Each structure stands twice: as structure tokens, then as C-alpha cells.
């Protein structure tokens, strides 16, 4: 593949701030071939570290997921309160325009390979806020989504089922949305900037 070194302009930042931020264009990192990647995919599927992003009421279901009754730890899933160390990003409910900025920022800070689980109708198609002026209708226009869990609000069983589905996809090597994001970076950025009016962060939060 031809290597192109586009640099990000960070045009929405004031001049004196542009120096502070990285302007290198994010790069795709292709999966390895053969046995090693399969082994790593198995490990990735068995150890899902979750960054729960409680944007709306649906996120309340993440707590019973962790406590005694549903106990997601037995599947090797664990909550991780920092984006740097997590691999599964759970968007828990409606995403308002204000939170979208933080969602994008947190998503970009997670290190690849990363997976996104969209939780609840609001995240997927706007749900009961479909015509609201300050929530977005489809999260997958702004960041790529691997697994959708429908419902208003989905029960913990549904979330576990979604996470199991995600594990399956990871093991099959199909969870490569982090690379898709880079591939369609311009489209995603354009969508994000269309919605977020007061854009005051770098173009890529590496």
C-alpha cells in the first residue's frame, strides 16, 4: 500500500495551541497473519476490559452487570476506568451533542484493537429522542460500532449476550473496526464536525 503522510491541520484550534497537539495522521495497523493473530484474538476475546460511558439512563444496567447477580468477571470481562487500558467502549444510552465530543475523544484515546458496543435504542437510532435538537440519532455516524444491543433499556442478560457476540467476532477476526475508522477517517471527522460546533480539541486525540 502506498504510504501517504498527510498531516492533520487542527484548523479549529487557535494558532498558539496547534503546536501542543500531534498532527500526524492516524495509521492503520494491519493484523498479523496466521497462528499468532489467532492466539492474540483468543486472548483479546477472553479479556475484555470495558470503558463504560454512561451517557444516558441505559448505562444504569452496567452496575448489576458487575455485581453478584450477573457477575461479568467470570467471562474475563472487567471494568477499567481509563480509556488507555480498555478495549471495549460501551456507549450506554442517548448521546447528546455535548457528550459526543467526549465520546470521540475517549474513543480515539483507546489503543487499537478497540471495540464499541452500542447500548439501547437511543444510541442506535435515536430512540425516544429521535427528533430532539440536542441528541444525535445514530452513533455509528461518528464512531464505528461492532455490536448493537437493542432495547430500552436492555437487561444485563442482553448486554452479556452482546459481549459474548463480540467475543465471537473477535475470535473470528472480524472485529477490525478500529482500522475502518482510520480508513474512513475523513468521513467520520466531517460528520463529527458537522454536529460539534465548538470544536476545541485536536483532530485526532491520539
Amino acid at each position, binding site marked *: 500500500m502506498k504510504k501517504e503522510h498527510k498531516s492533520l491541520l487542527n484548523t479549529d484550534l487557535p494558532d498558539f495551541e496547534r503546536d501542543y497537539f500531534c498532527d500526524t495522521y492516524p495509521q492503520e495497523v494491519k493484523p498479523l497473519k496466521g497462528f499468532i493473530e489467532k492466539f492474540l484474538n483468543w486472548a483479546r476475546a477472553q479479556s475484555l476490559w470495558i470503558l463504560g460511558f454512561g451517557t444516558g439512563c441505559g448505562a444504569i444496567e452496567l452496575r448489576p452487570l458487575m455485581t453478584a447477580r450477573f457477575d461479568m468477571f*467470570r467471562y474475563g470481562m472487567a471494568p477499567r476506568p481509563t480509556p*488507555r*487500558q480498555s478495549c471495549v467502549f460501551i456507549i450506554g444510552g442517548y448521546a447528546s451533542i455535548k457528550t459526543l465530543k467526549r465520546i470521540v475523544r475517549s474513543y480515539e484515546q483507546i*489503543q*487499537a484493537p478497540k471495540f464499541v458496543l452500542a447500548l439501547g435504542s437511543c444510541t442506535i437510532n435515536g430512540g425516544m429522542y429521535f427528533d430532539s435538537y440536542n441528541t444525535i440519532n445514530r452513533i455509528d455516524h461518528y464512531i464505528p460500532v461492532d455490536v448493537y444491543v437493542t432495547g430500552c433499556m436492555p437487561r444485563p442478560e442482553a448486554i452479556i449476550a452482546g459481549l459474548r457476540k463480540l467475543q465471537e467476532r473477535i475470535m473470528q477476526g472480524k472485529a477490525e473496526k478500529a482500522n475502518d475508522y482510520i480508513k474512513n477517517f475523513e468521513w467520520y471527522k466531517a460528520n463529527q464536525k458537522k454536529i460539534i460546533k465548538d470544536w476545541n480539541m485536536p483532530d485526532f486525540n491520539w
Partner: protein
Amino acid sequence: MDTPLLLKILYAIISLGVITIWGLTLNGVVRKIYARVQGRIGPPFWQPFIDIIKTYGKRTAVAHGIMFFLGPVFRIAGGIGTYLFIPAIIGSTVFSNFSVSGDVLLVMYFIFFGQLGMALGAGESGHPYSAIGVARGLAQMTAFEVPFALSIIALAIQYKTLNITAIIMAQQGGFLNWTIFTNPLATIAALIALLGMNMHNPFSVVLAPQEIPIGPPTEFHGSYLGLMQTNRGIFNAAKLVLFMNLFFGGATNIFAMIIKTFAIYMISVIVGVSFPRFRVDQSIKFFLSVPAVIALISIILLII
């Protein structure tokens, strides 16, 4: 010793591998125990191994500067250094490590060393929670070093040596010769200090899951985090082996080592599951009062 250097290095690597596996298994078992106490099933005990493979398998990584690179390296150097100067199994060529040249002071230095390196690395990551975690960690560490150092002084007076092998040798021949029976006060003080070192509740102010969700390692990811997880296994086991050597008569075979270190670890686990967390000021005040006084009394008793 007349073992050739290369062979010694090979032995050290084997011994390090074994202790890493044992330390990580211990961590996994402890997570299971915590889960059972909370009425959960908990992750399988091999979960730490999978987590490590996954973290090393991350495809991208971001560095925040040179110290950010070096932080985890210092940390694991502290862990390996601590372990390599402690004889894990007395009388065994493979597991006696480089103990001949090492003494307790060197090991104590290594225990401190990793944390300081880590503090620099975490400081450079620039995350506010890292800075808070580092400040709390160093404050608590300074506090628990006091009873620990005092009880080491008590041991030095008691056995008239700082050499770990000599200290183990002095405790051989029946369990009544163990330091825990010959000098119970120093042992109690040091075991309380161990609670602080292991950073389970009530002394988990560094990671403080409820306020500063992770503490110093907040920004570490990928292989940086992988190194730190590996170190968590090595360092944990190394501390336990040190305590076994100093207070519980050392080990003459690998089974004795496994049983004794497990039992010592259970002390901090049981305390950990049964108590809520101290605040920073409470924890520091605690270390500087109760265990420090106990250790002082043990020294005074030895002198008079």
C-alpha cells in the same frame, strides 16, 4: 560459589520464570477469593495470564516522553532486583539466586527503587490522577517503611547479621526457632507493614478505586502496562518470599515455599476483604503509631 556465571544466569532466568508464574497465579487466586467473599463466582485463576497476553498484544501505543518509557522498566527492575537478591529456596542451586552477595539493606532499597521510578514515569504522563496517586503512594510508602525498617533493625540486633542466608540459617531446626516465635513483636510490626506494601484494603489509598479510579498507572497501556502487570506478579511473590525468609524460617523445598508464601499472602487478603479503606492521613498516622511503636518496643527489649 564455583558455579560458572553463564549457568548462574540460566538459573536466575528459570527461577524468575517460576516466581512470575507463581506470583500471577497468586494474584488470580486472590481475585477469585475476593469474588467469593462478595458472593460472585469471579474470573478463573489464570485470568492474569490472559490479561498480560492481551496487553502485550495491543497494536498501537502512545508515549508521553522518556520517563514514561522508563517508568515501567524501573518498576520491573525493582521487582527483579528484589527477587534476585533473596534466596527463594535454601540449599537449592537454581532457586538460591544471587543471595550470597545480597543483604537485607539491598533488598529494602530495591523495594523502594521500583516505586520511585514508577513515580517519575507516572508523573510524566501528565494525568492529574497519576499525580494524586503518586503523592499518596509515596506518602504511604514512607510511612510503612518506618515500622518495616525498625523491625529489620530488630532482626539485625537479634541475629547480628544483615545477610538473608545467615538469618534463615539461624532459624533452622524446628519451627520454634522461627523469628515469629523468637521475636513476635518485630514480626507483627513487619506484617502490618506488609499490609501496606501489598496495598490491599484498608491501605489501598494509592489506587483508591472509588475516588481516583486507577492511580499512577492511569495513562499506561499496551506493553508499558504489560511490563507492570508482569512486575505485579514478580514483586508480589518476591516480597512474600522475603517475609518468609525473615520471619517464617525460609523454605527448604518448593512446596514449603508455595505453602508458606500463600499463607503469608492470605494475611493481607483476609484483612483486605474484611476492612474498608483508610483515608491517606489515617493510613499514615496508623503506620507511624501502632506498628512503629511495637517495633520500637521489640528493639528496646533486645537491647536491655
